[in-house]
């Protein structure tokens, strides 16, 4: 059935000789056409993605169009696109892996209506290349030929539009076959505009007609008859403005590039070495491969290359490699995978320890840098990690100073680490006050800056919505509202048509509604209840503990639209003032939420425990139906546990009961909570006994300490109920991890937390020594113990800072696939468990959804009914883990950045000289050569304060401890810094000293605003108003957000009444904003590397 053909290739060898190679090429009578119009779908073996049937035509882009305008083809509005294999292969060969992968993902994505047609393997579509025919001509000819075949294959029922940029092709093929139209994509636009105007009415009509009828050959023809020069975008998508703009900007940047390559002037950078040389160099150890990491604070000068994989072990280098200056960085951009050559030792440089302002370009610094570290230069880039960048156009004055070349404009990215980008556009003036998204196209060796093109506008500078959008784009978070197709998959639950437990499910699932007392403990007002608990005594006297988690996977089938969307989002994003859900609210706040008094599906883990020793005897996993009896909040549960029953009146479930049944039910509940606490205590003691003392147990207290200081709602000690619930969740996660790992040793999703590098603890140790504490960092147990001991009775902040330093020194906890790691590496350092995963929050984490599916497959495996089809293979799972880890990091960053945004907006309107709030107490937690880093506990802000200002004056404090700027010098020691004026006065700042700082906002046009700190006194700040001191910083924080939001909203209301959908949503469903204590605990448990400003923020 296959036909063999031979392809002769002429290849050039490395020595320059030509080699004649004969390769086989097999053709087959049928390849999948993936069209719903296919007359013999069985013969074509059409499986998987089909083109949708409601399009008026199919569009086949020529190879050149796919290469240059892929971004436009990515618009979901463009439907019915057939990519020919020939076109895909040219993309692969000429544009490299990155572009090709983009195309592959597009083809895989079920949301885009496009398919690949393997025309070169179809016996009628394949055309051998003729002698003397150029590659380009042959490709176009092949694609046209395939288009014609496809047209006839669909029995001439669907007109096909081939889009090409080749004028000759349009002339040659334009009128060859009726029904297959060959037109241009966009070019020749200006030329024909006047022509179109004349015939517009006619054409408009025809187009309308064409959209109405499904079989529309004639109407299409009518369009094409109306004018001879055609162009796809104008004809079919005149309203898709974004696509037009994007197209213009791509065209322009292309033209620029062509011009540039013609007039190659002096080279700014060394050429990159060819890939073979790089690969050979890496193998031989001459070059080193790593990821470029630009120093945010000195983006012009310093970048570091973090070593990757094998090269790390071989080279014997422990630290990162410094890349000093833009020349050495050689056109690589933050995040690229680069190849580095080490410089000889005498050219090595040290990193600068001085604080510095970002704007100052290449300022000569007086201070001697610290000891030299390995320094290198970039010789090649293995993988470019260019993404979309948010930039700001220069203001009018700056444009004028740039002068003659007004067409090309240097724009400044929001991210300091990205170099300026050259954009050619005519809209510069109009875009001045906006945040704009651009994409980098190229960076030639001849050009000082990379070339890019303009993509879209985000919003005005300084506008809250615009700035939030900026943060989202910078973290590559895209949160469009859920589409109609996705919402269609959702079950219905309206008062008229309530959702019910279906009888089939009732048969399949274990029914716990009558037998178990199930209840949930969550923060007050929480509506997305992931988890519930149950405990009871069995007939044999043993105890039965159950953890019941919302069964999200029941509502989200694998590879459904909603699943794909959730996978892309990977997590719910919590910003300071809003939330972007992973799942639509019908699931997250209603059907999946285990609310009190309603029937819900759940996935349960149920243990049988020995009655006295609480030893786990048996474990059962499975799907269940539950009805939560009580939806308690933490404080109420704690009160019940402590025996204070007055709280009962606050629990709605008890309200309508008569006295007697109330008493009985109350006793039952109190017994359950008490037993649960008892069990949790035992489990924890057992873990502690095994040498596992968790760091986070202490951390929790820190968090709560903070609450305690200021929040009179929260009692002094952390509630034991928190730990109880957390312990049960950890237990469930741990057991599920064990189960799925046993069933799927190579494709289970677990979570690891690698032990930290000892050298990262050195700063912590030194800081502690300054206060006279010794920190033993050899194991997690000793570390936690010594952190406990390092407590200054006079200053609780010291302990807090030390802990945050310890957290910073640790690596992130990560998801991984068990097939790609050795079993020893599964260990979770923070929790001291050998296997751990995330199972308990499927509503807001995609990883939990994957784990749920794995668990379901594992159970069915036990029952000998395999449902393995929908599980990820090791390779896919690893890819997915990388994606989820990545998204989690983005979620953390965006949360942090949005908090900072709100902080800045809060302080922006205040006058720093007069306003009381802008002066605050701060603690020095790190010393640099020209300043100190200060932590302000009241606002949870971390920032730098300079001891030497821009004019070279140093700080000095008189007898009244007020600071002044005077000429003098600074001297830095390990634990202190001394500033001596020429007059002989000197002032010394020690680590952990309290000082008074003034907070002001440094506004920036192109970047985010930053908080500036200025030391105004070397004495602790005396609070004039005690009430203010007792005000909770947390309270203040939420006030802060509210205040900023309110002022923004007021401003908006003045213009127009605009309802913030998310805000409304929030009020409607009252969901937790990720600040439930449990999530807080989870977060610390993850030991994520959050800045203190963040983890104590919001």
């Amino acid at each position, binding site marked *: 059935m296959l036909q063999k053909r031979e392809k002769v290739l002429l290849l050039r060898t490395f020595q320059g000789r030509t080699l004649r190679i004969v390769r086989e090429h*097999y053709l087959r009578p049928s390849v999948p056409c993936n069209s719903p119009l296919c007359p013999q779908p069985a013969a074509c073996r059409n499986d998987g993605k089909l083109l949708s049937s409601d399009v008026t035509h199919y569009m086949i882009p020529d190879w050149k169009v796919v290469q240059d305008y892929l971004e436009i083809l990515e618009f979901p509005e463009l439907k019915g696109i057939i990519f020919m294999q020939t076109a895909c292969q040219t993309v692969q060969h000429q544009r490299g892996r990155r572009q090709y992968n983009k195309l592959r993902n597009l083809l895989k994505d079920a949301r885009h209506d496009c398919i690949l047609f393997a025309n070169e393997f179809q016996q009628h579509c394949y055309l051998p290349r003729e002698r003397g025919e150029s590659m380009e001509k042959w490709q176009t000819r092949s694609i046209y030929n395939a288009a014609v075949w496809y047209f006839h294959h669909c029995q001439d029922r669907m007109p096909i539009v081939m889009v090409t940029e080749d004028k000759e092709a349009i002339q040659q093929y334009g009128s060859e076959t009726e029904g297959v139209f060959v037109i241009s994509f966009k070019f020749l636009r200006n030329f024909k505009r006047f022509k179109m105007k004349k015939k517009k009415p006619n054409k408009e009509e025809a187009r309308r007609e064409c959209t109405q009828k499904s079989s529309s050959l004639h109407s299409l023809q009518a369009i094409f008859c109306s004018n001879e020069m055609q162009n796809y975008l104008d004809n079919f998508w005149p309203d898709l403005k974004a696509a037009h703009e994007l197209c213009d900007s791509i065209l322009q940047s292309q033209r620029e590039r062509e011009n540039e390559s013609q007039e190659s002037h002096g080279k700014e950078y060394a050429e990159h070495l060819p890939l073979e040389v790089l690969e050979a160099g890496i193998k031989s150890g001459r070059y080193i491969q790593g990821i470029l990491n630009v120093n945010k604070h000195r983006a012009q000068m310093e970048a570091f290359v973090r070593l990757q994989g094998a090269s790390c072990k071989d080279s014997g280098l422990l630290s990162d490699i410094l890349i000093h200056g833009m020349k050495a960085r050689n056109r690589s951009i933050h995040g690229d995978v680069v190849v580095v050559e080490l410089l000889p030792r005498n050219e090595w440089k040290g990193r600068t320890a001085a604080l510095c302002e970002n704007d100052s370009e290449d300022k000569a610094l007086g201070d001697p840098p610290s000891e030299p570290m390995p320094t290198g230069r970039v010789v090649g880039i293995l993988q470019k990690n260019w993404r979309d960048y948010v930039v700001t156009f220069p203001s009018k004055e700056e444009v004028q100073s740039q002068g003659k070349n007004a067409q090309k404009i240097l724009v400044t990215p929001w991210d300091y680490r990205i170099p300026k980008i050259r954009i050619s556009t005519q809209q510069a003036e109009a875009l001045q006050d906006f945040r704009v998204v651009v994409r980098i196209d190229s960076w030639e060796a001849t050009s000082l800056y990379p070339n890019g093109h303009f993509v879209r506008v985000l919003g005005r500078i300084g506008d809250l919505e615009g700035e939030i959008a900026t943060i989202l784009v910078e973290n590559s978070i895209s949160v469009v509202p859920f589409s109609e197709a996705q919402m269609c998959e959702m079950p219905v639950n309206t008062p008229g048509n309530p959702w019910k437990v279906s009888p089939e499910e009732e048969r399949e699932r274990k029914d716990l509604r009558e037998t178990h007392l199930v209840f949930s403990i969550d923060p007050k007002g929480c509506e997305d209840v992931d988890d519930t608990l149950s405990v009871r005594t069995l007939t044999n006297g043993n105890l039965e503990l159950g953890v019941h988690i919302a069964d999200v996977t029941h509502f989200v089938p694998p590879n459904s639209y909603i699943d794909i969307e959730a996978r892309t989002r990977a997590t719910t994003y919590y910003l300071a003032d809003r939330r972007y859900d992973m799942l639509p609210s019908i699931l997250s706040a209603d059907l999946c939420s285990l609310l009190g008094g309603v029937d819900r599906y759940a996935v349960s883990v149920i243990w049988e425990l020995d009655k006295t020793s609480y030893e786990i005897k048996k474990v059962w996993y499975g799907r269940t139906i539950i009805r939560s009896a009580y939806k308690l909040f933490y404080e109420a549960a704690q009160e019940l546990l402590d025996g204070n029953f007055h709280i009962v009146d606050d629990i709605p479930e008890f309200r309508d009961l008569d006295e007697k049944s109330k008493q009985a039910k109350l006793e039952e509940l109190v017994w359950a909570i008490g037993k649960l606490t008892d069990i949790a205590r035992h489990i924890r003691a057992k873990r502690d006994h095994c040498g596992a003392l968790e760091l986070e147990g202490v951390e929790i207290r820190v968090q709560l300490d903070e609450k305690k200081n200021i929040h009179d709602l929260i009692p002094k000690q952390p509630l034991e109920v928190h730990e109880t619930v957390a312990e049960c969740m950890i237990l469930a996660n741990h057991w599920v991890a064990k189960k799925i790992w046993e069933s799927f040793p190579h494709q289970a999703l677990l979570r690891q937390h690698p032990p930290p590098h000892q050298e990262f603890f050195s700063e912590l140790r030194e800081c502690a020594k300054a206060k006279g504490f010794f920190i033993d960092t050899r194991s997690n147990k000793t570390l936690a113990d010594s952190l406990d001991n390092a407590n200054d009775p006079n200053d609780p902040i010291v302990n807090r800072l030390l802990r945050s330093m310890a957290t910073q020194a640790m690596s992130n906890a990560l998801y991984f696939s068990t097939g790609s790691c050795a079993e020893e590496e599964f260990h979770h350092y923070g929790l001291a468990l050998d296997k751990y995963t995330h199972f308990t929050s499927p509503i807001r984490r995609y990883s939990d959804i994957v784990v749920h599916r794995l668990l379901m497959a594992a159970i069915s495996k036990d029952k000998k009914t395999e449902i393995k089809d929908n599980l990820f293979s090791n390779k896919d799972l690893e890819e997915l883990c990388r994606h989820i880890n990545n998204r989690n990091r983005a979620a953390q960053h965006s949360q942090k950045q949005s908090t900072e945004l709100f902080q800045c907006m809060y302080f922006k309107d205040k006058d720093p000289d007069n306003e009381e709030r802008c002066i605050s107490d701060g603690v020095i937690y790190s010393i640099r050569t020209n300043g100190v880093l200060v932590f302000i506990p009241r606002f949870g802000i971390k920032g730098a304060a300079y001891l030497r200002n821009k004019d070279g004056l140093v700080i000095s404090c008189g007898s009244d401890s007020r600071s002044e700027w005077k000429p003098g010098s600074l001297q830095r020691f390990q634990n202190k810094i001394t500033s001596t004026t020429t007059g002989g006065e000197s002032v010394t700042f020690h680590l952990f000293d309290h000082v008074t700082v003034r907070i002001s906002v440094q506004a920036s046009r192109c970047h985010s605003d930053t908080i500036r700190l200025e030391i105004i006194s070397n004495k602790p700040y005396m609070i004039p108003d005690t009430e203010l001191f007792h005000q909770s910083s947390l309270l203040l924080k939420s006030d802060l957000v509210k205040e900023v939001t309110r002022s923004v909203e007021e401003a908006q209301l003045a213009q127009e009444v605009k309802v913030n959908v998310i805000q409304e949503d929030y009020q409607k469903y009252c969901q937790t904003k990720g600040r439930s204590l449990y999530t807080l605990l989870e977060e610390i448990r993850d030991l994520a590397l959050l800045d203190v400003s963040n983890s104590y923020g919001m």
Partner: protein
Amino acid sequence: MAGLELLSDQGYRVDGRRAGELRKIQARMGVFAQADGSAYIEQGNTKALAVVYGPHEIRGSRARALPDRALVNCQYSSATFSTGERKRRPHGDRKSCEMGLQLRQTFEAAILTQLHPRSQIDIYVQVLQADGGTYAACVNAATLAVLDAGIPMRDFVCACSAGFVDNTALADLSHVEEAAGGPQLALALLPASGQIALLEMDARLHEDHLEQVLEAAARAARDVHTLLDRVVRQHVREASILLGD
């Protein structure tokens, strides 16, 4: 440089085959009159010629004779023009010697050597064009040649290679796929009994995947058997017509 995509998302290999499909096989028996048995085979662009002499008396040193069975002597050579880069020596290098040994092992397992004690069977194989799967082509050619010589065998020996790319086993690798450097498994099978005459693999492959690759190679070898069987029957039919039987 984007490396060649050996298996596309749509499941096509570089040359248009799907994962389990063989290359085109063409074969002829009895191509030389002066030898006892001979055969020529094309597997895609890999072309091999096999010649068999024997069983005959031991040539050279008598000491080599085996008292209870025949001695199988295999020699492998590949033409200087068979590969992309011209070779210096057609035979006698390490690789050829190894290939000769492997062939010998394979055929000692298949030929009923105990029927011809103290005698010798010579198998000479030459590769005219090497485009991947040379071992398999040699075994298949030699099988036909041994059959042509009328030497009794337990069964056909059918060989095929298999590789492993993107979690999928590929049957019958071409040169492009071999050169990519993934694991490659060569299997010689006695199809009727399903016994393995020779199994060889150079690169590392995870144990979990071995079964899958082995299964693919075995299925391909059975497919080869069907084709070779057809060739033999065709040859016998033609010969009997010529003999006027």
